[in-house]
């Protein structure tokens, strides 16, 4: 029968399992984000630091190429935990921050603006499913430009160097993964929470940027005035450095203890989750 001649009938086919529903939100959100060419270009730019690090590692172990390029071996940096922390992890996490600043608000704000939450939440999905679906988008894209290339670079370095290097620096694999995931999850939750409060995506993005940088400024001011490292806890970038220092087992990055940095990220994630839980509801409450 032609499709336009069909009358109304119930659906009698099989239903997908409940765990697959957040993946629907993830798939559709990711699809709409990847449809932007500007974003795809940005994603390529985000991979540039990893590409440069890969080139440096390659050149480091290829004397012939170095000779041809007339680069003295001593001028190249030593490839160790500090090298990966400085030249790979930090730029990657900065790009993750920029990515979340631009993408995060676009995920939830339009749903608030267009009252779409009642449509989502009247279906067999919960608030948690909804947030998880949206978070998964940021988690995947963030991972794609942070710990995934990071882990590949460490494995590449292990392949180029001798076996002893990998056994001495095995922890770097977990360091890049842990640092990136903590940063991505806490920043994503914060971005989603802000966009749940601000309906207009560009304003939500600016608010996210403002909170992070105003926090850093405030933290620096408190530290200077009271001559204490506690003020640095307000700066998420300082906490990030402390996290890198702790996980990469290096010194001189931050005066903030790693445990305190972990607490900061846990607090940011907790507060954001609370805001999201309160703000995401099927009906708009007019006070």
């Amino acid at each position, binding site marked *: 029968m032609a499709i336009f001649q069909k009358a*109304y009938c119930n*659906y009698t086919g099989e239903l*997908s399992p409940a765990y697959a529903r957040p993946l629907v939100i993830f798939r559709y959100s990711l699809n709409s984000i990847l449809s932007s060419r500007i974003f795809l270009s940005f994603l390529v730019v985000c991979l540039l630091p990893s590409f440069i690090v890969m080139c440096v590692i390659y050149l480091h172990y290829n004397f012939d190429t170095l000779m041809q390029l007339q680069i003295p071996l001593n001028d190249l940096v030593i490839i160790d935990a500090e090298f990966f922390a400085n030249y790979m992890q930090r730029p990657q996490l900065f790009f993750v921050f920029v990515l979340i600043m631009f993408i995060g608000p676009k995920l939830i704000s339009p749903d608030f603006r267009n009252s779409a939450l*009642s449509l989502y939440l009247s279906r067999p999905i919960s608030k948690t499913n909804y947030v998880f679906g949206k978070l998964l988008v940021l988690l995947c894209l963030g991972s794609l430009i942070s710990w995934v290339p990071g882990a590949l670079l460490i494995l590449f370095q292990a392949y180029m160097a001798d076996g002893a290097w990998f056994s001495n620096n095995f922890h770097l694999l977990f360091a890049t993964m842990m640092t990136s995931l903590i940063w991505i999850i806490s920043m994503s939750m914060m971005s989603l929470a802000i966009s749940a409060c601000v309906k207009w995506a560009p304003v939500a993005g600016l608010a996210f940027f403002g909170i992070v940088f105003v926090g850093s400024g405030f933290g620096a001011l408190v530290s200077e005035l009271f001559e204490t490292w506690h003020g640095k806890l307000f700066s998420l970038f300082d906490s990030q450095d402390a996290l890198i220092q702790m996980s990469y087992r290096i010194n001189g990055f931050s005066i903030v203890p790693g445990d305190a940095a972990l607490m900061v990220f846990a607090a940011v994630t907790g507060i954001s989750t609370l805001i999201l839980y309160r703000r995401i509801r099927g009906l708009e409450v007019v006070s």
Partner: protein
Amino acid sequence: MDVTAKHLKKEKSTKENFSEERTSGNSNKEIEKENEQQSKFLGTEKKPAVIELDNLSVSFAKPVLNQLSAKVDGRCIGLLGPNGAGKTTLLNTLLGFTRPSEGTARILGHDVFKQKKQVHGLIGYMPERDSFISGMTGIRFVRMMAELSGLSPRDALERAHEVYFYVGLGEARYRTLDSYSLGMKQLAKLAQAIVHGPKLLFLDEPTNGLDPPARARMLNLIREIRDSGNTRIIIASHLLQDVESCCDEVLVLKKGKIATYCNLEEERRSNRKFLLMQIRGDEENFVKGLREWGCEVARPSRRHIKAVLPEDISIHHLYALAQELSVQIRQLDYKRDSLEDIFFRAMESDEVLKP
């Protein structure tokens, strides 16, 4: 022995088994369980009510819904009431968006809060306000909603196309939702609400802002869905005509309580003719006199009185009363109740329906 005969024999033996066991001194619980099994086997089991409210109260700063108790079981139920009566709150509570302060609500036998996911799997919801996912084409939007309800991507796409043609938006399915007119948006909202074939459909002001042809089309679609027999419908609307043309039962709310719940079909069929009178003079005493005789009286407007006379009271008695009170009866006509009458009567009455 053919299949029917086999089936009958099996049925008989099952019945016998049931009766044998019943006589063997089982406890009441066991007997109830057996009865349930028996009725299930014979296909005569009791189906749960569409909506069951048990002492349901919802409070925000002040009580909005006040101890509602009702069993609603029509094919298409209209939810009526003046502004602030609690229609939207009741709808939101049934959808699981608002938590009751007291009591329970069940949809098709499932508790709205304890079995939220099961309930949401059974329902479709068409909100009153514009509710969309921006930047999406119509077909993609409906497909996504179908997938969220549990359909596979392939089935969801197929159903989305079917439903889009069914509501009459087939030609506009690849346009973005932002470019739709108000009427088209309403139809798109209906499409997303029915794409997964819900057992119960909530329509919140479905004809809001529609021009007459679009409104007629929407009402036709609702009637078709109702007549398909697969989906029960709850319509919350201010437009009594719309409710009257689609619904077979109405639940009227007033100040957070159920003012009346009636079957329109039965109301229409029942012989509740009433007198519509236009009078001039001492209205108050005339109404009082009618009430003393046991007449049901309503006053739709000034100088107009509606009265259902008891069997022992005739029109002559009315004239006598009018003469006694020096009231002029300017107009006298027999009429039947319309939904508007039922609604206004419920609004005027101070009584609240008790379960």
